[in-house]
């Protein structure tokens, strides 16, 4: 019976069943969740897409980015600009009027089209990541120095967005959206549609990331995490791989930002600042880095905890988050998924656990991440 349960093929089947059940639960959520809860879940799932991208660059490649708020924000602003133009209906967006702008700035014009806005919401974060990666990874700036640079990127971007009030809406950001595709943004049908679109995009992002980490590309990424120099002496250029992973990760954050704006109806510089950027890392750390499911679970679980805690005790949340991070770092280096992998074998036959060095299947399931 043990053999049957843990044989690779059976394990695969269970995994597949688990994924199918999760997808079914997500797709049917509009049937059993209130509008308010559904909207919250939609937001969490958008965050899960950021977490997937972060796991790719941090969990698999070993590069810690504390600047993903920027990529998320750029995507969000791209969508926000489109929605703002749609709400203005051919006139200037309201905040531009207040700032004395008389003509729509040239860089706003392309966002009139939904398709172009979506494209730019993906390409701009990816291009910025490539740009930053080009100057850092190629010059072998890594570890904590790279992380500090990503924080600098956050400060620069936030300062820029606040300072250019006439073009970005300043501290208030962009809000007051009304329409998408000519339909009301607040209607039930639209909300359900946007929720389902988010589920589909999340599944797509998950499948993409899974493909990436299973491909030879993903193996090279993990090899870079273990020994960047060794990879170099095998004839690979680690900088190219790091740039590619960073750009894909940024593009996913941009996509998440676009969905976020559609669900929440506002984007402001504070949502792409330092604290949100660090929170994004916590989702992955607590969910379990180096495991894609962990990133999704971490993002949803932490944001669920955040919204329920801050509903009743808003002042406690940050303490809770800090405490949780310490606990996770000290006791759960593998996060929630790592914990599950540690506990799992305890329920199996005792000798099987002792046997793990010889039993390839148990070894697989025991693998620390």
């Amino acid at each position, binding site marked *: 019976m043990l053999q049957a349960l843990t044989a690779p093929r059976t394990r695969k089947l269970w995994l597949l069943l688990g994924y199918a059940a999760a997808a079914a639960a997500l797709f049917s959520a509009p049937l059993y969740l209130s509008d308010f809860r559904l909207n919250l879940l939609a937001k969490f799932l958008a965050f899960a897409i950021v977490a997937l991208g972060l796991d790719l660059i941090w969990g698999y490649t070993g590069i810690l980015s504390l600047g993903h708020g920027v990529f998320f924000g750029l995507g969000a602003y791209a969508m926000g600009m489109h929605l703002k133009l749609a709400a203005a209906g051919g006139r200037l967006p309201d905040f531009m009027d207040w700032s004395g702008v008389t003509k729509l700035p040239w860089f706003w014009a392309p966002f009139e089209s939904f398709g172009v806005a979506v494209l730019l919401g993906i390409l701009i974060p990816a291009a910025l990541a490539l740009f930053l990666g080009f100057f850092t990874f190629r010059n072998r700036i890594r570890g904590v120095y790279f992380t500090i640079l990503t924080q600098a990127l956050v400060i620069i971007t936030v300062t820029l967005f606040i300072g250019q009030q006439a073009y970005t809406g300043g501290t208030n950001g962009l809000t007051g959206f009304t329409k998408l595709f000519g339909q009301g943004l607040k209607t039930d049908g639209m909300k359900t549609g946007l929720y389902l679109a988010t589920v589909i995009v999340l599944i797509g992002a998950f499948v993409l990331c899974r*493909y*990436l980490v*299973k*491909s*030879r*590309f993903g*193996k*090279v990424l*993990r*090899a870079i*995490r*273990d*020994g960047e*120099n*060794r*990879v*170099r*002496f*095998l*004839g*690979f*250029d*680690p900088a*190219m*791989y790091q740039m*590619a992973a960073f750009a894909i990760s940024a593009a996913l954050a941009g996509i998440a930002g676009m969905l976020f704006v559609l669900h929440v109806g506002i984007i402001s510089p504070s949502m792409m600042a330092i604290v949100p950027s660090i929170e994004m890392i916590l989702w992955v750390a607590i969910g379990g880095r180096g495991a894609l499911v962990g990133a999704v679970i971490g993002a949803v679980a932490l944001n669920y905890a955040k919204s329920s805690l801050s509903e009743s005790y808003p002042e406690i949340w940050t303490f809770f988050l800090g405490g949780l991070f310490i606990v996770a770092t000290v006791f759960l280096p593998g996060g929630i998924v790592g914990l599950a992998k540690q506990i799992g074998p305890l329920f199996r036959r005792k000798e099987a656990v002792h046997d793990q*060095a010889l039993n*390839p299947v148990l*070894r*697989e399931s025991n*693998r620390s991440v």
Partner: protein
Amino acid sequence: MTKPSILSCEKVTVAFDGFKAVQGMDLALQPGELRFLIGPNGAGKTTMLDVVCGKVKPVSGKVTFHAKSGSIDITKRKEHKIAELGIGRKFQTPSIFAGLTVEENLEIAMSQNRGVWAALRTTAMKKAERERIDAELSLIGLGDQRALRAGRLSHGQKQWLEIGMMLLQEPEILLLDEPVAGMTDKETEKTGELLQEIVRKRTVVVVEHDMAFVRNFASKVTVMHEGKLLKEGTMDEVQRDDRVAEVYLGRRRDVDAVG
């Protein structure tokens, strides 16, 4: 020099913060040669390997790789380009990828298109690739450990895995830094056999301290001392040389006598 060399280092000088680790060193390798690089600690042996694989750039001197496609100045290339050209390097400490399985380590090391696009498109191994890896696994004797994370291997197994990785990389010139350091006698013996296998097909430079191990191979020995070439010749010639005895073998005898 009768045959054209595959690699020639001329008057190579390397300085670290003013300290000259290598001073005007010459080294020429014939295709298919097995060359041992010996010398006391701090003689600059490892630094010479670093120069050839591009890890360290010399302040002066020329390093030319005479590849099939033409002569290439190594000092102007980046490390990954040099590796791609066909110069492989094994470092002193086993540097395998601990988080990857034994098989995945070999898959990454295998000579292949190493661009990002090619890696993105590759999901499963081709039949020919699988066969190469299977053959390598049986050669290095790690067939049973193929699905094991490489971090869990013993010290000796890690060294063999790395040698296997080097073989699959198929370099024209292979640079090995103390391949038997820290090994048991039995492991050393097996490594010696693997080396014989490696040497059959390519040019190899080995930095080694273990004189008994070096004597197993009838090949040319280059002795370095204080960053310079001291003597080049067969093991017998080197051992008969007075200067070598003084700086290296002599000192070694003293150490042996004390120990």
